[in-house]
């Protein structure tokens, strides 16, 4: 690892340079909260942010996405035949993403990219994007990344990790892609030892405050059917109003719906975020619904994230501890508490 140091002005200049050649996306403050958006000017970028309200999953899996287009014109020989809709896959740099969110993309990869099927939109967007992370010097009270196997300085899923060391940033290239990005952005001055030391100290203090709230392994060790039939779900589900807030804000909730829309004789096949919280999600054409009850849907969400995913892929839980659902659930259902119940490491 050859860490680089760049002062804050220097980073801005490098970003401006990047912006001339590719799309640069970063956290900007819009209205009431931060969101990832393509930068129009470097001044929009706000690297002092805590985290974005919505996860950056929409960079790879937008809420609404055009998959195919087609014509229904009767006289057109191509009528009814679907064509892939054009998309912008030009090179893109995402700046300042938090390590938890970057880790989330790795977890999502297991879903979108399997041995048999590769989701082309996910893959092409992932491929054309370089992720430059920003370490969390001050995690929030709702963060629990270290509990679920990532951390405020985790490099997993990133190409470069930036650490804000006060007067500038230490940039650590993580991948070959990251190395090249730094080189081509003109960032070459090696970080002095005291900067590295500072970054290390920041990491220690950030991690210290986080601790471990429940055991992921304990949940893995539970019998799936016993967990499924556990009595605590009744209490967990009571407050839930079955809105899509948790699933839509979550960086590892990838479920989607596919819908056709027609306008005149032109049609689109679109995909859009869907949520296991919605009754229609599993509603059969026959009227039968295997998850017709709120309890079943709430249980599904937590079981999927914390148990099924572990059992299926053996790489931890499908949660990165970003805390968005904890902060924004309108009725204060707290995944940390649910996980504690599931791991039975506390008697609440």
């Amino acid at each position, binding site marked *: 690892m050859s860490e680089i140091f760049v002062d804050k002005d220097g980073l801005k200049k490098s970003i401006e340079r*990047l912006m001339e*050649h590719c799309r640069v996306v970063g956290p900007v403050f819009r209205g009431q909260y931060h969101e990832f958006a393509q930068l129009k000017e470097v001044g929009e970028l706000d690297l002092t942010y805590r985290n974005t309200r919505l996860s950056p999953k929409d960079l790879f899996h937008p809420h609404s996405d055009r*998959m195919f287009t*087609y014509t*229904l014109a009767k006289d057109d020989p191509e*009528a*009814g*035949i*679907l064509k*892939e809709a054009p998309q912008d896959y*030009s*090179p*893109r*740099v995402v700046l300042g993403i938090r390590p938890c969110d970057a880790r989330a993309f790795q977890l999502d*990869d297991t*879903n979108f*990219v*399997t041995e*048999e*099927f*590769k989701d*082309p939109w996910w*893959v*092409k967007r*992932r*491929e*054309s994007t*370089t992720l430059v992370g920003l370490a969390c010097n001050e995690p929030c009270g709702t963060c629990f990344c270290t509990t679920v196997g990532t951390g405020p300085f985790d490099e997993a*899923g990133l190409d470069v990790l930036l650490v804000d060391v006060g007067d500038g940033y230490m940039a650590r290239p993580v991948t*070959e*892609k990251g190395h090249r*990005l730094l080189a*081509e952005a003109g960032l070459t001055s090696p970080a002095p030892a005291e900067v590295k030391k500072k970054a290390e100290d920041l990491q220690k203090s950030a991690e210290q405050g986080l601790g471990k709230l429940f055991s992921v392994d304990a949940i893995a060790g539970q019998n*799936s*059917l016993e967990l*499924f039939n556990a009595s605590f779900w009744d209490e967990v589900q009571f407050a839930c109003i079955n809105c899509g807030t948790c699933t839509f804000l979550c960086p590892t909730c*990838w*479920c*989607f*719906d*596919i*819908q*056709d829309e*027609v306008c005149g004789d032109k*049609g689109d*096949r679109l995909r859009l975020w*869907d949520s*296991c919280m919605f009754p229609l*999600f*599993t*509603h059969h*054409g*026959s009227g039968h619904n*295997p998850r017709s009850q709120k309890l*079943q849907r709430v249980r*599904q969400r937590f*079981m*999927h994230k914390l148990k099924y995913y572990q*059992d*299926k892929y053996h790489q931890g839980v499908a949660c990165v501890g970003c805390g968005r659902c904890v902060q924004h659930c309108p009725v204060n259902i707290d995944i940390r508490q649910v996980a504690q119940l599931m791991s039975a490491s506390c008697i609440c």
Partner: protein
Amino acid sequence: MLSAGFAGEGLAGWRGLGAIAASGPWRNEVENPYLPYPVRIESVVTETEDRNLKTFKLVFLNPEDEARFNYNPGQFAELSVAGLGEIPIGIASSPTEKGFLKFTVNKVGKVSSHLHNMCAGEIMGVRGPMGNWYPWELLEGKNVVIIGGGFAFTTLRSSIVYMLDPANRPRFGDISVVYGARSPGLLLYKDELAAWERRDDIQMHITVDGTDDPAWKYNIGFVPTVTKQKAPSSENAYAIICGPPIMIKFTLPVLTELGFPPDRIISSLEMRMKCGIGICGRCNIGTEYVCKDGPVFSLQKLAQLPNEY
């Protein structure tokens, strides 16, 4: 000058997706698993007297698509109608029948209702094949008991045609079939049923819940009852059962009584689906996606999963 190559590089430099990297340079060549193969409706046959079930015979527009559509009895496909959407339907034809696919579709929702109004010659799409299939490797050399009810007979038809194919027939032992519907007019594939009835290499037990047709020459009674009466032997045998939940519920104890262990009772499940390839997330039962890890499960496997289907 910035080359921007760092972000647009090929897969070689991209971690975590070894599987893709292994499949070679795919850019613009990768098969889009969501893209249906265009097909033409060759014929539409109304199967039942209530006109709620029609069989669509589909022919691929591009012969190379047909070559890629390699399937086994028990699999399903997404039927795609541009402008309306897709529905997952079991494949009713057998891979031994070349040149077309058959799907029998029940009219329930937006897409299936539209399909019912489509005619021969119209263009639609098929995406698949999807899911797993009846365990043909395990069934080799075994007796096969097929139990079906109502319109869930589609992939069972595929299986029967497949097994009766002269090239395949020697691979299986005795084949017996219990197939029931509410009334004679609601049975699917009536001509084929009659033809199978006349053969001696397949034991057919066709039944209806009731009928006032004096010419009805087959059984009368519910599928579980008829299964019990005909008592197909469980020795060296597998049972494949598809039908409405209530039929399955009452037939399973009969099969157990006949001596079929849970790992030799095979069933196929239905679930609301969208992508059909295990990605969109809605059709899971516990860890298993019905669209990709199913739809075919043994009773033994189902017993390990949450009862949520």
